[in-house]
């Protein structure tokens, strides 16, 4: 016999306004096994909790049902409360008569009846509650950061500074990411390299950080605190331990004129290269697709010239397995390909370029050494048109979302253009100016008012070449008339889009992506740097378009989550998780395939029914990894043989709830 106490909360007037709480408490007093029932204005308050504690002592209660709000809100409160009286915390049940009842109904009579039903169900369930216990799970206090852009660098530095080891995995030959490509950064006009490269160097020299460049995540297994990540370290064809970074190899390399992706195709590199002068690590890699040693089988110039003897043509990809306790995903973004747009010339006009290309044209380490020259003939432009929202806010060709940073970098480009070439004209075609950040609106005003950039509100319908100029034809929607600008150079603010391999990485990590393939955080407001999968965090523009301040803030946020996790010596497992009755499990694997957290493995066990002393017969059953399981119950719902079960939500408990409801109404 259980001794159940029922505590009906008024929640001020939140519940009491619609539900007759006194009547509900009186009704509850008559339910089977209920020995005490009362109501109170705020059960979660200290007097409310004391009332529960006193009742436990006085009436020797062994189960407590609190009829109040959602368990998401106050279940931990009441679990702690009854635990202080020596009861197992999982003997507290919450009957949600607020979100599920008073907030969604108007008729007091009917709402009261429903509240009584809900309490009846939960008392029937509480009677069958079993004591549950947490377990301790060990954890590896080492993190992996995937992506070596400013987000990854910041996160890695923060975690490393807190005293934990970090592996920073970067796909390209150098860390630095997108920010390393930029010239100046809005709204303060700091030189991107000046503020980024010290962080890159800090990363490289930090005793707690190991950088793996030219490397990609192949496979992820395990769970929070105990991940195993396989990383493919692609062959650089250079022995990093010997290379001194002197640069003789790429000065002497005979394969020239290859487009350099770091310069967005405007500059060139050789077959052995470092992507940019400040690269970290400053170790070249051989592009085997274009290297003559690999394509023709003979050359060997770099090997002969290298004074350190560091060239390794026979180097192979290496797979390393890292044990880490947490993972930060900071893989950044890609840019939308504007060659899809016919009205802007399908990408075939050399003087119609993207914003990132313009960054390279202005950058002192770029292909023009910072002199703004148009790509077609090297002419210094006298007028430049900047076009916003190319692929953003464009459901038809690109994406419906706003890429968030374009208004600001258009303003920055216009300002810097006027700064470098005082007589040049800057035109900015825009839909709206979205300048909501610290110092942003002031920056745009400065571009317009102090630097004289010409802002035109309207869309560009067509760009075409005429007499050595690009004619930009559009509408000025403020004047309500067509407009035509003859420009030397047109710069398109192309939309930010997810990395092409984002979905693939999400699958490896067991995290979700949204409809565009941006990584999906656990909660847009309250858990913005976490994934639903415990122990994996997100930072920067791989989640959604972000500027540098937001990216860095989120990276520090993710890092603090990681250090918070690592501050414990062991993790506490959630006891309300799934388990498998292996006796009845038929090993069909449905639970494993529907588990959103890949928390279920199929294992071989001895089939005792079929085995003899001489001959052992094995059978397959499912097994829950308690570290990974989140207790979502998908397996329990899917299992046909009812072998997958959820602690705290056993079939007996659910059926008891249904029966209680049926009994009340029969």
């Amino acid at each position, binding site marked *: 016999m259980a001794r159940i106490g029922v505590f009906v909360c008024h929640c001020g007037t939140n519940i009491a306004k619609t539900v007759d709480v006194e009547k509900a408490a009186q009704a509850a007093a008559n339910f089977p096994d209920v020995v005490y029932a009362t109501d109170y204005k705020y059960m979660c308050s200290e007097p409310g909790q004391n009332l529960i504690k006193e009742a436990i002592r006085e009436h020797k209660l062994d189960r407590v049902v609190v009829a109040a709000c959602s368990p998401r809100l106050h279940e931990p409160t009441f679990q702690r409360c009854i635990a202080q009286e020596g009861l197992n915390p999982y003997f507290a049940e919450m009957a949600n008569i607020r979100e599920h009842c008073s907030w969604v109904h108007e008729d007091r009579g009917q709402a009261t009846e429903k509240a009584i039903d809900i309490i009846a169900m939960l008392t029937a369930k509480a009677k069958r509650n079993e004591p549950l216990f947490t377990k301790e799970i060990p954890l590896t206090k080492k993190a992996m950061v995937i992506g070596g852009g400013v987000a990854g660098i910041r996160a890695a530095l923060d975690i490393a500074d807190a005293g934990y080891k970090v592996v920073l995995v970067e796909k390209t030959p150098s860390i630095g990411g997108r920010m390393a490509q930029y010239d100046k950064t809005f709204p303060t006009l700091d030189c991107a390299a000046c503020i980024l490269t010290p962080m890159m160097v800090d990363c490289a020299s930090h005793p707690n950080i190991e950088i793996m460049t030219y490397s990609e995540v192949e496979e992820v297994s395990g769970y929070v605190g105990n991940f195993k990540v396989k990383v493919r370290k692609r062959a650089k064809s250079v022995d990093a331990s010997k290379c001194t970074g002197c640069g003789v190899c790429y000065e002497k390399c005979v394969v020239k004129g290859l487009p350099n992706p770091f310069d967005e195709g405007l500059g060139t590199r050789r077959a052995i290269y470092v992507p940019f002068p400040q690269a970290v690590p400053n170790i070249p890699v051989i592009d085997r697709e274009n290297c003559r040693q690999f394509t023709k089988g003979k050359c060997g110039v770099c090997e002969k010239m290298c004074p350190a003897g560091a060239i390794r043509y026979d180097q192979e990809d290496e797979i390393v397995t890292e044990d880490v306790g947490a993972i930060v995903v900071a893989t950044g973004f890609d840019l939308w390909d504007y060659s899809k747009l016919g009205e802007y010339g399908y990408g075939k006009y050399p003087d119609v370029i993207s914003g990132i290309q313009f960054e390279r044209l202005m950058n002192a380490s770029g292909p023009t050494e910072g002199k703004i020259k148009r790509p077609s003939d090297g002419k210094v432009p006298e007028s430049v048109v900047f076009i916003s929202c190319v692929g953003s806010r464009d459901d038809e060709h690109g994406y419906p979302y706003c890429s968030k940073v374009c208004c600001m970098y258009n303003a920055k480009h216009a300002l810097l253009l006027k700064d470098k070439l005082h007589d040049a004209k800057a035109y900015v075609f825009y839909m709206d100016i979205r300048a909501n950040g610290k110092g942003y609106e002031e920056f745009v005003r400065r571009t317009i008012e102090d630097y004289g950039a010409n802002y035109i509100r309207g869309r560009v319908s067509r760009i075409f070449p005429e007499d050595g100029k690009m004619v930009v034809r559009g509408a000025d929607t403020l004047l309500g008339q067509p407009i035509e600008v003859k420009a030397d150079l047109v710069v398109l603010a192309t939309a930010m889009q997810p990395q092409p391999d984002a979905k693939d990485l999400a699958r490896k990590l067991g995290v979700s992506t949204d409809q565009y393939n941006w990584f999906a955080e656990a909660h847009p407001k309250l858990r913005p740097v976490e994934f639903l999968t415990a122990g994996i965090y997100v930072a920067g523009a791989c989640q959604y378009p972000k500027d540098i301040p937001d990216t860095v803030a989120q990276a520090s946020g993710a890092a603090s989550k990681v250090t918070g996790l690592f501050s414990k010596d062991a993790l506490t497992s959630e006891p309300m998780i799934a388990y498998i009755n292996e006796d*009845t499990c038929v*090993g069909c694997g449905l639970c494993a*395939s*529907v588990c959103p957290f890949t928390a279920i493995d199929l294992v071989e066990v001895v089939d005792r029914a*079929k085995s003899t002393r001489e001959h052992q017969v094995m059978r397959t059953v499912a097994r829950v990894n308690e570290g990974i399981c989140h207790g979502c119950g998908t397996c329990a719902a*899917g299992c*046909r043989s*009812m072998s997958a079960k959820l602690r705290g939500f056993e079939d007996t408990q659910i059926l008891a709830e249904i029966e209680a409801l049926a009994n009340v109404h029969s």
Partner: protein
Amino acid sequence: MANEVETKIREEAKKLLESGEVTVVIGWGTGSAAFKTTPVFVEKPEDVEKLVWNPACTNNLAVYLPQVAQHAKVGIVVKPCDSRSIVTLIQEKQVPKENLKIIGVTCPGIVDDASLKKAGVKLSEVQGLDWDTDCVVVGAPSGKTKLPITDAVKEGCRTCTQRTPVISDVTAGSVPAVNPVPIEPMEGTPEERRAYWAKQFERCIRCYACRQVCPSCYCAKCFADRNDVRWTNKKADTSEAWMFHMGRAMHLAGRCVGCGECERACPMELPIMQLNREVQRRVEALFDFVPGMDIETAPALGQFEPEDPDPNEH
């Protein structure tokens, strides 16, 4: 028409048994009457003459595989629908594919005593059964009668779109030219359907024959038999029968291959396949998924994608 196929089945079975590739071949054998066959387990090459093929070969022999083929090499003769059961069993890890040698037969449609009775055949007079292009030929003392296939076969065979096995090591028979009848959605308003099924389930004696003949009902302990959690009560009444049949229908969603064995086995002649067909029709409409067609396509209800259609929007 069936003779050639029968000869081929026997040849293949003999080869498998003689070479020792399998220890047993499961097929159909002569039954207690001319309109019946019975499952046979042939273990010796000289016994392959016991194997038959005719329009009464109704049993879905895949039902034996989870017990027989888990740890032994087994040969099995299958119709197209049975072959789909094998695909689902392999997908659901109940049978290792490498343990099977599958002798497939093409199938114009199968009869059972209920479908023959419905077609006006006097069962006591039936002396033999065969196919002839688009007819079922019923032999009787008075001579042979030809019934159009769509009149004589089981309901599931009328709507069947798969006339050749989807998985087999050898296939006997040519592809029959039979046009399937489309599956109609269940008729009536929800209230009418509720009344209809209440009447049906009233007759259910819960012998569980439907479950026992079903290759997809392989659970070691069925939910209906559990006594730790009583999903169904032992009491024989409509509501308990209702719970059982609904539970089974849900468990077969996206898995039923439509062989119709449950309905054939039912001593009370409950139209169980109406339920299963409706569930499968909905799964196909929602997820564009037909169960048991190939091993690689993951079952619709065994996976989750955020892009999955929302049933409420259909």
